[in-house]
């Protein structure tokens, strides 16, 4: 055994880098160092400030500020409205993705491009636009008002804007996977006697379901933290139409840093849990789409 080892090209072997696998490409130290430093300075250290400050509060105080009645009401609105909007987006987002993938129609490119509008339009602009549409004398509010439906300054308005914010997440998650469902598979189902509805329910939907769930979770996660587009249309009434991010701002304006931090901690924990869920869903989706 020892003789075997001695046969190796001892002394001439390049030292294997301690940390990474060897490569002839240069620049690892520079790029990795730069990325990590920047990541720590901009993201990790500031984010940890929230948790450290919360940890210093003590449980009782944390519960007082982060789980106060008013805070709970705000979470309920933020999470509830996001959930509702994400559900609606799952249905209509799938429908729009279907339209974009399966049909040809005039103006398709415009529709396709504008699906990303919520990613590109500043949230404050979306906020004042939706508010103007749904107030009593707005284009849409004018129609709904006589029917006794009030959207602006109620939770309904919050849901409406969150639908806008979340729509592209569902469409863009579902689109590539739907396009990837091969025509063969649908034809196979039909040749085995399946109706169009059965093919959709038993073959297409299961194939795109992980992607649909991913889009749903992303839309939901985005909705929970959304601020700019919602504050204009929400009534911002404590306990009733006040979203959680607005409550943080209110606390800050009153110099109640501990209150703001406590609520922020709850929101961060929720976001990170959702991020984990989204990553798991994406892994599931990838596993499904690999042949």
């Amino acid at each position, binding site marked *: 055994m020892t003789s075997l080892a001695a046969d190796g090209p001892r002394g001439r072997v390049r030292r294997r880098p301690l940390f990474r*696998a060897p*490569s*002839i*490409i240069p620049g*690892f130290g520079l*790029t*990795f160092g*730069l*990325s*990590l430093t*920047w*990541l720590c300075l*901009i*993201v990790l250290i*500031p*984010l940890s*400030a929230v948790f450290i*400050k919360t940890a210093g509060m003590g449980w009782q105080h944390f519960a007082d500020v982060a789980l106060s009645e008013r805070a709970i009401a705000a979470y309920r609105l933020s999470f509830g409205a996001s959930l509702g909007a994400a559900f609606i987006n799952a249905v209509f987002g799938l429908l*729009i993705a279907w*339209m974009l993938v*399966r*049909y040809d129609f005039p103006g398709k*490119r415009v*529709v*396709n*491009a*504008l*699906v990303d*509008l919520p*990613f*590109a*339009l*500043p949230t*404050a*602009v979306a906020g*004042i636009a939706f508010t*103007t*549409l749904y107030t009593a004398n707005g284009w*849409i509010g004018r129609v709904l008002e006589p029917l006794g439906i009030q959207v602006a300054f109620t939770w309904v308005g919050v849901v409406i804007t969150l639908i806008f914010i979340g*729509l592209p*997440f569902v469409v*863009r998650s579902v689109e590539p996977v739907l396009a990837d469902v091969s*025509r063969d598979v*649908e*034809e196979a189902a039909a040749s085995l006697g399946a109706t169009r509805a059965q*093919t959709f329910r038993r073959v297409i939907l299961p194939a795109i379901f992980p992607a649909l769930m991913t889009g749903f979770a992303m839309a939901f*996660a*985005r909705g*929970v*933290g959304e*601020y*700019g587009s919602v504050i*204009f249309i929400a009534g911002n009434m404590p306990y009733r139409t006040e979203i959680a991010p607005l409550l943080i*701002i209110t606390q800050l304006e009153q110099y109640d*840093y501990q209150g*703001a931090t406590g609520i*922020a901690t709850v*929101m961060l924990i929720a976001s990170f849990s*959702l*991020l984990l869920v989204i990553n798991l869903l994406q892994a599931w989706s990838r596993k499904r789409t690999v042949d």
Partner: protein
Amino acid sequence: MRNGATSESRLARAVIMAIGLGFFGLFLLMPLLVVFAQALAGGIGAYLDAIVEPDALAAIRLTLLVAAISVPANIVFGIAAAWAITKFDFPGKSILITFIDLPFSVSPVVSGLIYVLLFGAQGWLGPWLAEHDIQIIFAVPGMVLATIFVTFPFVARELIPLMAEQGRDDEEAALSLGATGWQTFWHATLPNIRWGLLYGVLLCNARAMGEFGAVSVVSGHIRGETNTMPLHVEILYNEYNFIAAFAVASLLALLALVTLVLKSLLEWRYDYHGKGTGH
């Protein structure tokens, strides 16, 4: 095109199209139209007055300044991170990717708050900063920091899948021909990733110019000094100065439209398909 065996009946198709386009009109088209309709409600004169008003101009300048700092910062970071992640194998890579994506899942308001906790009067570095007369929070540096935070992942997450897909062959070939690291980057890597980079920069810039929540937390809300365009829109709107609010908003909406047009062009012309879903 699809044939009889795998397409919906004419009726089902018509219903799907009608619902889809109706939803599209209600949630995407109408909000966009109302911005321009409201902006021009007082005529073109009032519209232009609102835009050339000094506070509006100051807000435009500040918005451009913030974007001019944060976008290049993210380009440098994005390229460096994508290079380290895609050209080398090292443990903990997926954790690093997750951390880079983290800002997308943080509420904009919380994104602003974290800098208040660090640099604010009551924050960790507050006393030290006050001593040296450096103001970050409620001033431009804080707004830049918050903007960098919310746009942090845009360039990196666009480049990482792209560069991973392209592998290391080109770089290794260039290096084997005697190119230096920088030459390899300029001549072998950059030409392959330029459309992806442009795509990421587009989305990054749109978000940088349009960010509201995070910037709102760290801004002093002082007209003409610490107001970006979105913040200026809010102030005007809350003062019931709707025409002016929508006039400034229409500029932001135009920016969004230009972004979408360029993005679509990249997708059609260069067949570049965005990998990430920007927020």
